[in-house]
């Protein structure tokens, strides 16, 4: 319903959405047996494309056959194409015996079978297909008198080295993070799951950008319906370009209007791999160092990948702490406002006195005070993100000294409010998922308003509305609040606490339960001397 309204307001009519690709050859057109003709077509296609290189040369046959190599500079891997394509065609004729001379007719066949040393060579007979290949970074080889072009698969492109994840760092655990190339990213996942059951289906999205989107899943573990749904939703996207996986995320979300991320985004291959083992689907998008994981639930937003690597007791402690932090980040300012404004009787006398003393001389009601401080904090945070790193120091000085201390000394805000805001900020930093922490930040303001208007009952009503919203959310058919609502105690192994690895017997319920067991139930650690029959995990 909202979506239709939005479409009306924003004036999208659906008529001009596919017009973007009008400039490119649309219908299929076969290559002809005349190389000059073919080149003319391709020159037309790549008119004014300065980075497309046409390299014409002659094969050393008698009579000399004209040939042309077409690729895009720096998009195709130059060293690969020059070494394994050009060299092998122009220099390395030793493989040819006397009875096998290149002619017009057998040239494509012989080149492919005997000469070109590239790992993968395809053939193409269609202009559109050939263009696509060239644009993807492959090398096209046109030959005189042949309606078949050879395509050397040489995708290169520019990318950075694999670095440590910036947003999700760990103290213990693997340190490689995704990069911008989806091929490298898929390889990083594949290295962790060396199984032919890890399927990688590559789709192309974006009329102009033609971004490769790899849908990864473990066959037999995943719910097939989810995979089909993911693919269907991705194929439904009709947009000119996908710049980042965030675009895909917004398109494939179940509920278009929500504060909460219904898709889990991560830049860690280990997290992706373990999600796949749980029966989730990974979506790796080219040119994006962030993979998407569906279905996501609310709990996944509070799981840091380090929880899996630390001692399970410690990890559980941290997990519980994070739940507390979540509540603090969401509620603390609201509760502070409600208590100081309406329910002073809730506080023990001593605490009440110290708060009242701190508030003496503050000219604003608690709500305005909290609003000022929270907004200031958000400003500081935003400024810190926008500034270059070497100037960023200035922000912390301004924040800590000028706003914190000076504001209290000037009597504009109370010191207790500064503590509340600081605690809230600290708590919101502990939420591992960035998009979840954004939603918490926004909702905090909403709840502050509730508290200012109706006190604690107001906060509670606000929370209930939030709960209703959360209960109504689904991520690819999986209720967002599962395993709490609907309740499934079996799936609570990795929620409030993390049970030891040797006790994670089953996969989450949503995986379709085709292969629910994760491990041999007898496989837990054993004290020396105890029999194998009664291991310690039951």
């Amino acid at each position, binding site marked *: 319903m909202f979506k239709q309204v939005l479409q009306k307001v924003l004036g999208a009519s659906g008529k001009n959405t596919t017009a973007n690709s009008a400039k490119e050859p649309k219908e299929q057109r076969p290559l002809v047996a005349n190389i000059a003709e073919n080149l003319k077509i391709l020159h037309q296609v790549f008119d004014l494309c300065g980075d497309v290189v046409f390299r014409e040369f002659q094969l050393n046959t008698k009579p000399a056959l004209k040939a042309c190599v077409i690729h895009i500079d720096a998009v195709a891997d130059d060293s690969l194409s020059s070494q394994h394509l050009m060299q092998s065609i122009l220099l390395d004729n030793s493989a040819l015996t006397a009875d096998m001379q290149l002619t017009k007719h057998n040239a494509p066949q012989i080149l492919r079978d005997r000469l070109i040393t590239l790992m993968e060579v395809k053939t193409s007979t269609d202009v559109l297909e050939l263009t696509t290949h060239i644009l993807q970074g492959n090398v096209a080889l046109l030959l005189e008198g042949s309606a078949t072009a050879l395509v050397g698969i040489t995708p290169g492109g520019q990318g950075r080295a694999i670095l440590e994840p910036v947003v999700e760092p760990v103290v213990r655990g693997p340190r490689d993070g995704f990069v911008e190339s989806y091929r490298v990213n898929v390889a990083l996942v594949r290295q962790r799951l060396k199984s032919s059951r890890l399927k990688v289906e590559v789709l192309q999205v974006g009329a102009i950008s033609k971004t490769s989107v790899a849908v990864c899943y473990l066959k037999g573990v995943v719910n097939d319906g989810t995979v089909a749904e993911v693919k269907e939703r991705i194929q439904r996207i009709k947009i000119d370009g996908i710049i980042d996986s965030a675009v895909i995320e917004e398109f494939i979300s179940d509920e278009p209007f929500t504060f909460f991320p219904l898709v889990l985004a991560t830049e860690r291959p280990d997290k992706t791999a373990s999600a796949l083992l749980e029966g989730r689907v990974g979506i790796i998008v080219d040119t994006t160092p962030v993979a998407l994981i569906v279905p996501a639930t609310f709990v996944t937003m509070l799981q840091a990948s380090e929880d899996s690597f630390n001692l399970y007791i410690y990890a559980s402690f941290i997990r519980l702490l994070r739940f507390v932090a979540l509540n603090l980040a969401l509620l603390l300012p609201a509760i502070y406002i409600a208590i100081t404004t309406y329910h002073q009787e809730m506080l023990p006398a001593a605490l009440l006195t110290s708060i009242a003393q701190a508030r003496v001389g503050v000219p604003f009601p608690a709500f305005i005070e909290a609003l000022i401080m929270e907004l200031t904090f958000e400003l500081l945070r935003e400024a810190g993100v926008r500034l270059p790193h070497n100037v960023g120091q200035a922000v912390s000085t301004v924040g800590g000294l000028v706003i914190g201390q000076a504001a209290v000394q000037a009597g504009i805000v109370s010191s207790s409010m500064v503590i509340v805001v600081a605690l809230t900020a600290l708590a919101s930093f502990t939420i591992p998922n960035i998009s979840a922490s954004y939603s918490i930040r926004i909702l905090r303001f909403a709840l502050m308003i509730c508290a200012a208007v*109706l006190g604690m009952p107001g906060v509670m009503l606000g929370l209930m509305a939030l709960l*209703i919203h959360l209960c109504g959310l689904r991520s690819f058919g999986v209720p967002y*609040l599962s395993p709490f609502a609907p309740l499934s105690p079996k799936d609570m192994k990795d929620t409030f606490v993390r049970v030891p690895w040797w006790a994670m017997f089953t996969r989450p319920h949503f995986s379709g339960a085709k292969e629910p067991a994760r491990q041999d139930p007898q496989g837990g650690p054993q004290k020396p001397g105890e029999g194998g029959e009664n291991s310690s995990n039951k």
Partner: protein
Amino acid sequence: MAALLYVVVLATAVLFVPAITAQKAYQSAWLATLVLPTIIASVVLLAVWKLGMYFPDKTLAEYSEVILGKLLGKAVAGSYALFFLVMNILVVREFAEFLTVNFMPETPIWAFCSLLVLVAGYAAYKGVEVIARMAQFILPLFLLTLLIVVLFTIPDMQLGRLQPLLEGGVLPIIQGSFVPASWYGEIVVLVMLLPSINKPQEVGKKVLIALLAMTITFTAVTFTALAVFGPYLTGDLLFPVLELASYVNIARFIQRLTILIMTFWVSGIVVKSSLTFYVICLTSAQVSGIKNYKYVLVPSALCHILGSAFLFANTLQLMEFLDKYWTPMALVFELVLPLLLWPVAAIRLRKRRTSK
């Protein structure tokens, strides 16, 4: 589903009923909540369940027409819609009453009413599945708070306040039983919900468990209130359980838990009101032949706000209504009508089968 009904019944019952029951049955009030209401509610459950089994894919609004004919059926279903409406108006009013009396005496009552209706309407818009999930989410918190109240007031209990047992004979207990019975009987909302349940065959058993759990919890709470305050004070207090909460004192630091308790009650009441709201919309939509119950949301929300804010002048009027008028009215709809419909349905169905 069991969790849903549990929260739905207890959310408001715990607030109001101990006082009303104690006024009638005095120190034996906990017996009044234990025996008779459970039996009555079980009968209600049986009737509702049997009816549901006759028409597994129909709600009451749909099958009453089959049973009683078009006109009479519509009348019965329509009156059920009104009954649920009154019930929810009472819930909303109880909620607002509870908050204004205890926490925010200067806030106008319509403010709370309309906000609750807004939130409940949102939940009703989302549908019954969402409401059920909410209940599941809230149940542990709800139980925890009740448990805290009961456990930490143990030092203040004096069992002597419960004696002499059965002072005035059995009659006061029976009299006192009808009010809790009318609350337990709220499980009659099942008549509208059975078709949307996954495994309706198991519902009978599950709801019975919920019913027993309700009885135990509720009796425990009433018992605690009586043991701490004695029968007369319990009867005179508006919200005995809330006062109980203020007795909680752990290590001289965790005290005055009333507001905490209040927050979880608010959540319970929201669930209850949402479910009733949903049922009202569904019933009235089906009676009037509107295909999507969501169209009825806005008008019934208006009815709610107006009804809850202006039907009663003050708390005492509300209590009087609950005591004198609500109980018989509720029992008619909860007990009598299903019990009447059940044999009629049985006879009709048998006739149809033999004629075929």
